[in-house]
Each structure stands twice: as C-alpha cells, then as structure tokens.
C-alpha cells in the first residue's frame, strides 16, 4: 500500500513537472543561428521561383489570411475576418486595425489592392495562376476589402494565405530605384519591408542573411505575448550536408534543415540534438510518358494502361523506402500527399508489390516478351539513381530492361517540358494548402497534358473543373476522392513514397517548425538557457 502511494505521488510529481516544462514561459530575445543549404535569389513575393526564396519570405511578409499550424486550416492574418457571399463570387475581408509595416508605416487598403493586383498580373512571375479567378479588388472604406471573382473559387482563401499574396508597402515599393516593376522589385527586394515577424537587416549573398525582430508585428501567442520571441535569426549558407551536421554537433549553429535520411538515426540518438520529422506535402515518384509514340516516333508500351499497372505492381516500394529513405518514407496512396487537404487514402497504398499480378497484366497486354524503357535522372542526386537502379532489377524479372540516363536539372526540365522522355525522376511539394495546384499540374490534361504525360481522362477533367468552382466543401471532397481513385486506377505515374521534412536543432531550441509546405517558422521559436 505504501509503495503504491509512493508510486502515485511520484507519478503525479512527474506529470506536474512535465506540465510545468510544457507551459514554461518562453525565453525572450536571443539569436537563433540556422544553416540553410542554399541562398535565396530574390526576396519578392511575386517574382520568386525557388523554395529558398519562398520558405524565408513568409518570415518577412504577412498575408491577409495565414495558414494554421497544421498547414491546412486558415487563421486571421492582416485580415481579422473574412466571409463569402452566398454565390461565392464576392469575398469581404476586414483589415486589421493598427497593423504596421516594419518601418512603422500603417498597412492600408491601398497597399492591399495594389499588392493583390500586382500578384495577379499575368506578366508578373509564375504564381499569378493562383489568383486567376479574381476580377477586381476594391475598398469601400479604410478597413474593408472586397474581392470580386469571375467565378466561384473555393481555393481563394487558401490562395490569399499563400506567399505570393503577401501585402507589400505600395509607396515604399514605388520609391525604390528603377522605372519598370521588375527594376523596382529587384531594388526593393534587396531591403524588403513587410509586416511579417522579422525584417531583413543584412544580406551577404551566398553566405549570410540576418533577420531582426519586427517590433510592429501584429502576431501574439496563445497567452497574448507579442511575437516573435527571438531578437534575431542568422541564416548562414552551408551547402554540404555533412558540414551542416558537423556545425550543429559542434554548437556552431542552433538548427538546420535537409538532414539526409541516412543521418537521421544517428542524430536521434545524439543527446544534444532534437531530430524533427515534420509532416510534409513532399511526394517522390516517377513521371511517365503515356503517349502512343515517343518524341522520336518509336512506339511506347507505357501508353497501355495494363503495362503501367504491371510496372507499378512490380516496384517494391517497401524495399525502396528501406534503402533510400532508411525507413522514414511511407508508400503513396494517391498522387497527393497525405498532408494535402481533400487527400483520399482510403483504398490503401497504390499498387502494393505483387509480381504475379504484374506478370499476369503484362501477359494480358501482350508484352510478356519484355521491352526496353529509358529513365532520365538528375545527375548528382544519389537517391534518384539508387531508386532507378533498384527498379531496374525489379523490372528485370518481367523481362523489362531499364536504361538510366543522367543529366543536369535544366536539361532534364527541358526534356520534361517538351514531352521528350519516357520515364523521369520527380518530386513535388505543394505551394498552397489546397489540392488544386498538383491536380492541375498532374491530372488535368488541358493545363500541361497531365504533367506532360499525354494521359487524358475526360471524367477527371470534368470533375476538376467542377471542383474549381464547387462551394460545398463536402461535394468538393467527394469530387477529389473520385479524381484520386481514377488517377490511381489509370496509373499515369509510378508511385513511390512520401517523406517528412527532416530538420535538426540543438536541444536548447524550442518551438522551431517547418510547415507541410516547407516554410521555416521562427516566430514561436526561442532558445532555452
């Protein structure tokens, strides 16, 4: 009895201590030293095209609506509330009173109108397609913004929470050196002023970027404390994975991202390091060409759905996940990642390994004597070549010979964008918390021939068009379920795996997060003494 009492007391005590630690006050101030593998190119929300830009931009700029902590929900940003008209063609947003840019000037409706018009201008950058449904942005008074749409668009709130819809200071931008928008943008992006948690303080290209706390940032934590906690974030550029990890172990930096999968276990057992595996929208797969003939005119067996299914069945995802991702990946159930809104994974993993079925399907397709395929991979990407080499051996059992060709990224893109390929290594990360970006890219033919595969399914095209204006969330979910089922059944790609974002911090770092879209989130991070 006595021991039970003691044990209960001990358990209660531990529970209390744990609770106290979880709710401990964050440490204010301090500098977080974070190493990245590559530098940003242009810190402009509209004209950027690289993840290294996007993932930092969200620290410098705020959007009207912000992605929630799960990366799928939406929470108030520079707009405190928003509502849609019953016909879904008008959105009314209330601008946050007292919101300021990092120089102390107020965020006005003029800034909002100008920023959104700049972001949706088809001549500006590559992201304007996310706002293509907007017909007009207006402000009936100083704190109301009315967005009129050409057609109902359920993804508009998510688009307003995406980096390219960031609100920029109109007057400061116009005051930047240059005559055209591009020239002004290039100069403004060297000293950008936004209303995000941080502001750029200095930037030595290729080596270091210093972000300082924005004292005017509107964000607060759950206890009402002003964010961010940190005074400064130092972002250094360290391209080599092994060097970044050595720096972390030596305490030269506090945190870093892109930990190679083979190093995760080792860092998990390091007492000084927290190894984070953040849910991500990253999927790794092989794109394929489903057209009857290849660009050079030779007949293409992959145009036969049974051949595509057979080859999908003949890939042991389990083996690839084990070897390439060291067990950190999970098999894909859909072309969408499981962290995407309206993801449907209810039918289980796509094409679980089944060699007998693969042989049967190939026989039915009349290809049981085998054939030769060619896959393109990016040179220097060891994971891609390992995956293809493994698949080469798996497919050999079907009499299918796989040739692997390596090339640099731009050459590979060139082959992809002109449909001059048979198979190629690919991966995808969403930029918007909505399933429509990848669906438009991979499944919807009229855009880019279903990621240049030439695969066309009228029902998918129709369902996608419906879903793009569908205002009933339940109906939209049902449309996406059907699209994903048809896609998987037709196998216009070779499904491989999903992976988390692997980031590591010193044990002293609390609260650093990476969103499923990849954005590095520093506003609730602090360094424990």
């Amino acid at each position, binding site marked *: 009895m006595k021991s039970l009492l003691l044990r209960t007391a001990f358990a209660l005590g531990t529970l209390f201590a744990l609770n106290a630690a979880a709710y401990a006050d964050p440490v204010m101030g301090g500098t977080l030293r974070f190493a990245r593998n590559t530098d940003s190119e242009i810190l402009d929300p509209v004209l950027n095209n690289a993840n290294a830009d996007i993932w930092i931009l969200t620290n410098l700029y705020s959007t009207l609506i912000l992605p929630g902590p799960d990366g799928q929900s939406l929470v108030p940003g520079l707009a405190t509330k928003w509502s849609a008209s019953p016909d879904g063609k008008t959105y009314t947003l209330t601008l946050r009173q007292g919101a300021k840019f990092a120089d102390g000037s107020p965020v006005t409706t003029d800034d909002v109108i100008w920023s959104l018009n700049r972001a949706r201008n088809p001549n500006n950058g590559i992201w304007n397609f996310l706002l293509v449904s907007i017909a007009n942005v207006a402000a009936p008074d100083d704190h109301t913004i009315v967005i009129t749409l050409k057609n109902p668009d359920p993804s508009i709130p998510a688009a307003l929470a995406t980096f390219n819809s960031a609100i920029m200071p109109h007057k400061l931008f116009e005051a930047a050196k240059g005559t055209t928008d591009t020239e002004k943008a290039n100069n403004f*992006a060297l000293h950008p002023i936004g209303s995000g948690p941080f502001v750029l303080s200095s930037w030595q290209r290729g080596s270091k970027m210093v972000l300082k706390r924005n004292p005017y940032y509107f964000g607060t934590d759950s206890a009402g404390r002003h964010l961010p906690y940190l005074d400064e974030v130092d972002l250094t550029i360290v391209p080599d994975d092994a060097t970044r990890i050595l720096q972390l172990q030596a305490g030269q930096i506090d945190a870093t991202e892109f930990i190679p999968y083979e190093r995760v276990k080792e860092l998990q057992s390091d007492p000084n390091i927290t190894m984070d595996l953040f849910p991500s929208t990253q999927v790794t797969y092989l794109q394929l060409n489903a057209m009857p003939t290849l660009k050079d005119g030779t007949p293409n067996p992959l145009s036969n759905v049974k051949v595509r299914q057979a080859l999908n069945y003949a890939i042991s995802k389990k083996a690839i996940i084990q070897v390439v991702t060291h067990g950190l990946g999970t098999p894909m159930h859909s072309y969408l990642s499981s962290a995407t809104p309206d993801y449907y994974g209810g039918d289980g993993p796509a094409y679980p390994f089944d060699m007998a079925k693969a042989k049967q399907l190939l026989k039915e397709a009349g290809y049981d004597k085998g054939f030769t395929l060619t896959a393109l991979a990016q040179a220097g990407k060891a994971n891609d070549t390992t995956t293809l080499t493994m698949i080469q051996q798996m497919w050999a059992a079907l009499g299918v010979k796989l040739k692997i060709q390596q090339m640099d990224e731009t050459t590979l*893109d060139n082959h992809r964008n002109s449909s001059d390929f048979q198979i190629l290594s690919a991966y995808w990360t969403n930029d918007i918390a909505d399933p429509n970006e990848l669906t438009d890219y991979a499944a919807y033919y009229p855009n880019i021939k279903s990621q240049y595969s030439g695969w066309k399914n009228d029902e998918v095209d129709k369902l996608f068009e419906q879903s793009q204006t569908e205002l009933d969330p339940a109906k939209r979910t049902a449309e996406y379920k059907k699209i994903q089922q048809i896609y998987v059944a037709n196998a216009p790609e070779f499904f491989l795996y999903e992976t988390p974002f692997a980031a590591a911090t010193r044990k002293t770092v609390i609260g650093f997060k990476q969103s499923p879209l990849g954005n590095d989130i520093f506003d609730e991070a602090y360094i424990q003494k």
Partner: protein
Amino acid sequence: MLARLPGRLLQMIPTFILIGVVVFVLIRLLPGNPAAALLGIHATPEALARINAQLGFNRPIWVQFLLFVGRLLHGDLGISVSERIPVTEVIARRLPVTLALVVMAAAFALILALPLAFVAALRQNRASDVALRGVFQVGLSTPVFYIGLLMLGFLGAQLHWFPVGGIGSGFWSGLYHLILPALTLGVGLAAILMRSLRSTVIGVLRAEYVEFARAKGIAPWRVLTGHVLRNSLITTLALFGLNIGTLLGNTVIVENVFAVPGIGGLLVEAIFGRDYPVVQGVTLVLAVMVSIVFLLTDIAESWLDPRLNS
C-alpha cells in the same frame, strides 16, 4: 623578359577574345536557357517567351554577342539572371574570397613542399624519404572533399581549433576561417611539387657544377641555396604555374565543403541555372587570372634562368 613584356601582354588580348567567344557559344549550346532554368516545371511556351523577351535572350545570337562585347568595353558584364544584380557586383563580392583561398593554398603548398622535398632528396631512399613520399602519395590520391571533411571533423568539430566552415566576419576572422580550406586545397599541390622537386634536386646534386662548387670549398648550405635550389626551382616553378589552374578548379569542391562563398561555387550554380551573364563574366575573370599567373611564372623563370631571355 621585361623588354618582351608589352608583346606578351598584347598576345593575351586575342586569347581573351577567343575565350569570350567560346564561352559565349558553348553555354548557349547546352539544352535549356535562363528562362527555362528560372521557370523549371512552370516553363510553358508562353512563359518561356515572356521571360526570354524580358531578359533579352530572344534576340539573334550575334546581336546578343555584339551587345555583350559593347558592354564589356564599358566594364559592364550584364545583370545576373538569378540574383538580379550586376555581374560585376556579384564577382566583386565573391572573387576576393577565392583569391585569398588560392593564394593561401599556394603558399601552404610551397611552405610544405620546398623543405620536405630537400629533406627527401638529401636523404634519398632512407626511411625519412620513403615516409615523406608515402604521406604525399596518400595526399595526392585522396579526394579533396574527403580530406576537407576529415579536417573539419577532427580539427574543427572535435578539437575546436578551427571553425567548422563558414567565412566569419571581418578580415582576420576571414583569414582564420580560410586556414583549413586552404590547407585542404594546398595538400594536393604540395604533393605534386614535392615529387617533382625531389627528383630534380637529386639530378642537380649529381651535376658537374655542383661537384665543382663543392670542390672549390664553398660551404655546403651555400651550394644548396645558391646552386641547387635555384636550378631545381625552374621546372618546379613551371609546374606550379600550370597547376594554379587546377587549384582554381578544385576551389569548387573546397568552397562547397567549407561553406566558403567564393567564385568556384558561383560558377557551378551559374552553369546549372543557365545564368549566361554570370558564366561569361566568371570565366573571363578566371581566364585573366590564369593568364596573369602564367605571365608571372614566365617572368620568374627568366629571372631564375637568364638563358631563357636570349
């Protein structure tokens, strides 16, 4: 040599023009273009046309070349496609780092190779000679990035004698940060120089004029520095000059491992990103640097061996 200097300098001009033309054409022969690299998977034909027009890469190649030459004569290398700032600014920021790295690496190589080659030559085939040659053989055959990682792991992360990569802030901190990368870069060159110098010294030691100097009763150390060193250095110097180009090439790997923001890494990024203006600018600057090194080598050689002047 000094009399021939203006001629040599004039000779360099056609070399630069040739390099300019070759680089200008070669980079455009690679599949893809700056717009394609910028747009990646978003490269629809319309987007490609729009961006190429914005950047001026839709003009005929000869028009682009004339514009490039015209700007070059005004000291303008164009605007970087990826960084959107003048190429001269990009190079001015990155070049000093690489120059410092290469100069330090060359100095380390000479400091290591000269005394050790003499020790090895004078103690030919004895234990110390065999050991030194063994060590340098290993240095020569180990990949540069691996030497770098070993140094970083042991001297940096374990012993904390040196920073684990990066460039620090300020001049002295910068030099301190460059010690390990320069050593890594210098070891390979030291091995090459030491092997050559050792065998030359052995040859020179057997030469008649050395025997004669010794017979005249000149002090042994004066024979070594005055006769042997000077005559052995001629071939080693030529080898040193030739290898500066290789050293510049290896900076790509070393800069990557040690997170040094130099010109080597810049060139590789620019080629992958089809950043034509940066590729052209960096290649020209590197060509000028290598030509200057060759010229300096020639001057030093003719000083060491006045016969070359006749």
